[in-house]
């Protein structure tokens, strides 16, 4: 059964339509890449899925594990297993990273009716995950993302993903602002989490990230619609030829 089903989705911000009839199906365990030029609606799709205020669907539907996600608050979507790795992770002064991680993890567990983690259990889990991602313990002692470099912020997103163990992770331009070493660390973190129980929607402008996170399916998004779907070789084709032909097609 499909984990994520997007059917004829129209959505936008402040009355401006950005997604114009988007269809997409992601099955359990699959890695899908969505590539597209600037302004094609990539980040809008990410925010509509996560439930950000102001990103309103106008028609169509999105089913996550068969359930209508527009009937769910952002935190309910998260607890159901939807994770958005932000393109620009936010700095939250005064909120300790560990407090944040623990509150998030236990809020999700509570929502799902699972037992919350005790402090020692939680610390053990976080430390193990941080080690896998080469995240310094010192980083965990700071306020959320405050004073982090671009690469550290992205790694912190992957840390959260690893800890929260979602069923679908939406990576919104996770490669932006990363040098090649940071990109490899992030990609390694993602690859480690790949498995039959987890799907990914990797949103990116460039093919580069897909050398490290090899997708099962590649979609081209242009002007708010999927205009072409293919295998991983489609990404290489796009890298060589650019988006021009798709932009014209969508406009036609």
């Amino acid at each position: 059964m499909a984990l994520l089903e997007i059917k004829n989705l129209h959505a936008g911000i402040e009355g401006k339509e950005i997604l114009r009839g988007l269809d997409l199906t992601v099955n359990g365990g699959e890695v899908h890449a969505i590539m597209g030029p600037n302004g094609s609606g990539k980040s809008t799709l990410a925010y509509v899925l996560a439930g950000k205020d102001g990103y309103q669907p106008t028609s169509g539907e999105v089913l996550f594990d068969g359930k209508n996600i527009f009937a769910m608050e952002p935190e309910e979507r998260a607890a159901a297993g939807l994770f958005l790795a932000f393109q620009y992770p936010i700095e939250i002064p005064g909120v300790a990273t560990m407090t944040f991680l623990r509150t998030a993890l236990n809020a999700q567990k509570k929502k799902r009716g699972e037992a919350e983690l005790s402090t020692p259990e939680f610390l053990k889990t976080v430390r193990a995950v941080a080690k896998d991602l080469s995240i310094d313990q010192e980083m965990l002692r700071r306020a959320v993302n405050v004073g982090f470099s671009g690469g550290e912020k992205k790694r912190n997103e992957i840390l959260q993903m690893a800890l929260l163990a979602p069923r679908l992770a939406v990576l919104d331009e996770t490669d932006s602002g990363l040098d090649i070493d940071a990109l490899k660390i992030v990609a390694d973190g993602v690859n480690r989490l790949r498995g039959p129980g987890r799907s990914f929607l990797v949103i990116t402008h460039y093919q580069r990230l897909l050398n490290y996170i090899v997708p099962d399916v590649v979609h081209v998004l242009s002007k708010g619609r999927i205009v072409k779907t293919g295998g991983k070789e489609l990404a290489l084709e796009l890298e060589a030829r650019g988006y021009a032909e798709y932009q014209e097609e969508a406009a036609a």
Partner: protein
Amino acid sequence: MAELKIIKTAAETGLAQEFAQARARLAGGPAIAQQRTAAFDVFAKEGLPHRRVEDWKYTDLRALMREAKPLAAPPDAASKARAKNAGAVLGDVETRRLVFVDGSFVPELSDIAALEKGLTVGSLSHALTNNDPALSVHLGKLAPVSDVAVALNTALMGDGAVIRVAAGATIERPLHLVFVSGEKPAASFMRSLVVVEKGARVMLIESHEGPAATGYQVNAALEMVVGDAAHVDHVKIIGDGADALHVSTLAAAIGAKARFNTFTFTSGGAVVRNQLFLNFDGEDTVAGIRGATLLKGKQHADTTLVANHIARGCQSREVFKSVLDDEAHGVFQGRIIVKRGAQQTDAKMMTRSLLLSDRAEADNKPELEIFADDVQCGHGATVGAIDPELKFYLMARGIPAAEAEALLIQAFLGEAVEGIEHAGVREALMDQVAAWLKART
């Protein structure tokens, strides 16, 4: 005499009657009686402050104080029994408690045995009755006589604490002045004097509390001398009942090379005016002046600060944060004065308000008056709502909206609370914040 006579309000008339009836029995010798009369004359001339008095612009006491409550009677056994557990706001912080019920010192509820070496503790009423020489040196000398709230306090002061920390003494256990009021809808005028001598160290906590429904009135003033090289941490917790009128004043004269920290936590009372008059009389002192205010309903709380840099080379940091819900009204007036001789003053004042409701109001009035030419002074003020981007980030990780807001509010206030050096007191106040947030949802 063609002087224009302003019509007196019921509260002004009531205060005059209370003073006329009580003046003969109020404690103190002739000098004190004279001081009371002179102070009352300031009030008689000015009346209650109102919005056309600049220092009281946002807290129109003439309008907010409908009536003068009768002076509180000494507490009876039942009142004292009910006050037994007062001061619980500090949780399990070990303190030496001095308990005042409806404005009177209650020795049997207080820890006055086995005082540390160098610590002297007594009640103001005792000091007044016995003509304690410390009073003639300091009482009424530190607080501004022209301030009407202080003037009323001086005229009607009944009891309070008189504390001395001898030169060089370090008092490990914080002193806790526990003020419990409102057993009856009455008025208490409390005055305390704290003298911390050269090189001494002490932490002093004042907490105010009372029942929600009695509509009592509190006017508490504390005068403090901070000696050269002394280290004083002062914390005031205003947790009065929901109908209470609370006016309080801290006036301090701070010596050279001292460390002075003061923090005010305000969450109680219907109308609160908290005044700080701080004089930096000695060189090279470092001061932290901070506060956190949490208001809801129709609460009104005004913090008015005058930091007066007289001597050179002092550093002061002012950080005041308020969280305002419903129709609450938060006021901050902060004035930093740098006198001509106070070169190399380093003073930075920041005030931030977080509005949780469209109907809440924050008024911030920072002022700098600088007469020296080699100083670093700055101020900043912000008023805003919870950042929706931050909130969404937390919610996208599974944290429900109310919990996300609570986390952000705790972080916001935490920046001010972190300035308190005592970890236990910090935690106790953050617990108060958590309880306030819990009651909100």
